[in-house]
């Protein structure tokens, strides 16, 4: 029997795992995208919402893009998972073989802080010195060899935006891996932090059988997640650490202060040896900021830019939305055509496909252009550096509302769709700020509410102008947007003051130099956002559309079917040609309306009529509102069915709404009821997809239920007040 040969392992491609780490704003994302292109995927670490981006370079390198960080002193579970990932302690994920630390050549002092910590992990490390072009233009010259010698790691100059140095970087990564494979121990920086901390960390680590990096962090970051995690598994550590802390001079600087001083002291002397610079001079960035963050001009700029973004989104998305709409209508027609003339024509299967699936999915996909454009603008503004300025300008205002500057992008995104808004709340570090942001994000009027506003305003708001130039319909439209914001503020304040009381987050944020946005980075972001929207919303709405279709179709009444049949026969006897066709179509529509009334959904609508009467609604609006709970888009289509109209006959629905008479002497559907419908839609949580995403992001079912409850409650109260108030005002 032959011994197992080694050739099988030798021929299998060995994948080198690379971890990419660095400060924010160092071009890490640009580097990652330049190296991996489209060969990247996004996933999640278990138990936290930190995103994990993994990509491949060539055949043999797999790169994990870790979140940008200034230090390895983990202060939260999200930061802890990064450390665990680096040490290979995340279940199911082996640790990296090589670490690449990306540093900004024009900002070396702070960047080297993280680099020295990373070197203490004891793994093969390569330093990518990025933005050497920026450094050159600022008169900063780095002696790469001297820096490498001091750090104890190879330093590769690169310019990620131009793709320069990338081949050298990959070669250095492979060389580092090969050296490690050959048993060469990685050299360390000429920096010994432990000596300044009492010198006992090494021996404690050895006694406990722990990595000295972990013991060091547990010692310095007292009360932090690393210490807590270690004490859970190594209770003896508590006494050891206490003893080591007591050994420090009483009343002297704390370990964290000692660490900072020692590291930066070392960095200072390295910089004198390896870096030479001209005196700093004003940068173009500073000249731009003089306007953009100016007390007055800055706000003007902000409003202009945000206004332009919004107007552009709606204007430029329109042709794409029309195209999507047209293609779905064509698809419906094609399906109906395929069924026509067969035994199944006009039957339930056709209805399921056309009214259930196609209409449902189409209702979601139609918002893809708006979401795509919004993300395009956000990605461009973020990549060029403006978003940091926007957060700087808005922080005080948002804090007054119980949020923070970090909530700006999530709230902004929610105006297109709350789903990407809630997902982008992951960037908010403080868990309470993040939760409040997630809970009020759906109050921002999203794109799906627009069709309802359009129909109600079109039907009931006279097209007059105020003060000669402000269009009344436009004002009402804008008012709905402001309503969401106006309600979100007290809600956020109350939540923050009661359920989510806690220390406010720190808001230390870098204002990076302005730069040209990178097309690759921007487009990849839009791609990822669009893909996740379609996958998440698409699957849920698809399922819910089928459910709603079923609730609106069953049970079927044999009686109605019989009456319809006889009406058709009568029509065929009396009319011919196009008159006959029109009549038959009308009979079918009336039948559809009647069946809907008879169905589960219709009965539900009638049952809740007493509840919606104070809002000025009748059972049809009530039914449509209930049908719209899974997805707002369903409100208009359900109303259409109830009023016996074709789906895209907007003008028809508007006219019918105007003329609708309750038939029992009550006033016809008027302005007050229209306003109350809009207010209800503006504030109600009618989107299962959003609630599901909320549940996933908060990792509990309680918060979506809470959000649904409070929003529906507020919607009802405000709609009631609106209706009664409008009636009282004689509108």
């Amino acid at each position, binding site marked *: 029997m032959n011994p197992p040969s080694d050739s099988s392992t030798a021929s299998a491609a060995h994948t080198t795992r690379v971890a990419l780490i660095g400060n924010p704003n160092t071009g890490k994302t640009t580097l990652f995208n330049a190296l991996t292109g489209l060969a990247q995927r996004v996933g999640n670490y278990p138990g936290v919402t930190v995103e994990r981006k993994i990509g491949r370079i060539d055949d043999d390198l797999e790169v994990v893009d870790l979140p940008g960080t200034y230090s390895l002193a983990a202060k939260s579970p999200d930061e802890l998972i990064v450390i665990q990932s680096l040490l290979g302690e995340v279940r199911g994920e082996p640790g990296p073989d090589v670490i690449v630390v990306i540093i900004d050549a024009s900002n070396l002092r*702070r960047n080297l802080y993280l680099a020295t910590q990373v070197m203490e992990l004891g793994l093969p490390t390569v330093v990518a010195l990025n933005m050497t072009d920026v450094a050159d233009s600022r008169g900063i010259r780095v002696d790469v060899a001297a820096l490498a010698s001091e750090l104890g790691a190879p330093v590769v100059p690169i310019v990620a935006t131009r793709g320069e140095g990338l081949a050298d970087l990959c070669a250095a990564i492979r060389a580092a891996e090969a050296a490690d494979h050959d048993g060469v121990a990685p050299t360390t920086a000429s920096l010994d932090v432990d000596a300044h901390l009492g010198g006992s960390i090494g021996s404690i680590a050895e006694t406990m059988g722990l990595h000295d990096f972990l013991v060091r962090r547990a010692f310095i970051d007292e009360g932090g997640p690393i210490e807590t995690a270690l004490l859970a598994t190594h209770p003896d550590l508590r006494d050891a650490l206490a003893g080591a802390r007591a050994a420090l001079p009483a009343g002297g600087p704390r370990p*964290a202060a000692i660490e900072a001083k020692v590291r*930066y002291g070392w960095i200072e002397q390295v910089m004198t040896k390896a870096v030479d610079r001209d005196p700093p001079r004003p940068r173009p960035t500073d000249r731009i900021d003089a306007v953009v963050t100016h007390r007055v001009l800055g706000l003007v700029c902000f409003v202009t830019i945000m206004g332009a973004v919004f107007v552009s989104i709606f204007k430029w998305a329109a042709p794409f939305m029309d195209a999507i709409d047209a293609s779905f209508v064509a698809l419906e027609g094609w399906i109906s055509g395929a069924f026509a003339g067969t035994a199944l024509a006009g039957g339930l299967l056709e209805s399921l496909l056309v009214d259930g699936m196609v209409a449902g999915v189409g209702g979601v996909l139609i918002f893809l252009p708006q979401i795509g454009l919004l993300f395009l603008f956000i990605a461009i503004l973020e990549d060029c550096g403006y978003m940091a300025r926007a957060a700087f300008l808005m922080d*005080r205002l948002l804090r007054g509302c119980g949020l923070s500057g970090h909530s700006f992008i999530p709230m902004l995104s929610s105006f297109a769709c709350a789903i990407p808004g809630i997902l982008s709340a992951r960037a908010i570090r403080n868990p309470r700020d993040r939760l409040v942001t997630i809970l009020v994000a759906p109050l921002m009027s999203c794109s799906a509410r627009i069709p309802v506003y359009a129909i109600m305003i079109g039907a009931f708001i006279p097209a007059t102008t105020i003060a000669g130039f402000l269009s009344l319909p436009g004002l009402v439209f804008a008012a709905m947007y402001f309503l969401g914001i106006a309600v979100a503020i007290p809600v956020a304040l109350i939540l923050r003051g009661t359920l989510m009381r806690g220390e406010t987050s720190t808001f*230390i944020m870098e204002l990076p130099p302005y730069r040209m946005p990178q097309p690759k980075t921007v487009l990849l972001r839009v791609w990822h956002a669009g893909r996740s929207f379609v996958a998440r919303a698409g699957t849920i709405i698809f399922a819910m559309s089928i459910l709603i279709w079923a609730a609106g179709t069953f049970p079927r009444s044999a009686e109605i079917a019989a009456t319809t049949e006889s009406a058709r026969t009568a029509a065929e006897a009396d009319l011919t040609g196009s008159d006959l066709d029109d009549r038959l179509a009308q009979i079918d529509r009336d039948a559809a309306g009647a069946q809907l009334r008879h169905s589960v959904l219709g009965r539900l609508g009638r049952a809740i009529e007493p509840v919606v009467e104070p809002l000025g609604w009748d059972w049809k609006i009530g039914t449509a509102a209930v049908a719209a709970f899974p997805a707002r888009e369903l409100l208009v289509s359900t109303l259409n069915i109830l009023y016996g109209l074709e789906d895209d006959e907007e003008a028809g629905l508007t006219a019918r709404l105007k003329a609708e008479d309750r038939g029992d002497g009550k006033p016809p559907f008027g302005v007050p009821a229209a306003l109350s419908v809009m207010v209800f839609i503006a504030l109600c949580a009618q989107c299962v997809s959003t609630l599901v995403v909320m549940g996933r992001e908060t990792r509990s079912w309680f918060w979506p239920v809470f959000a649904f409850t409070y929003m529906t409650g507020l919607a009802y109260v405000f709609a009631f007040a609106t209706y009664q108030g409008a009636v009282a005002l004689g509108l």
Partner: protein
Amino acid sequence: MEITIMRLAECTPGSGGTITQIDHDGPLGQRLMEMGLIEGARVEVVRLAPLGDPMEIRIDDSRLSIRRAEAQHILVSE
């Protein structure tokens, strides 16, 4: 020569100084120090946001935005 020690939160745009101390023992203090705001570093207030808060400060070649409440803990000598 008289040395005035001020809290960075009270400094007006254009003024600043050399950091003498970070008087916060918890995670905030650590965060400030990690960003390079340590004893001996030179820091300057560039401007205040339109509503008076946060403030933009310059440290080395970078610009940071920090809230006045956080800048309270940075003691500088002019």
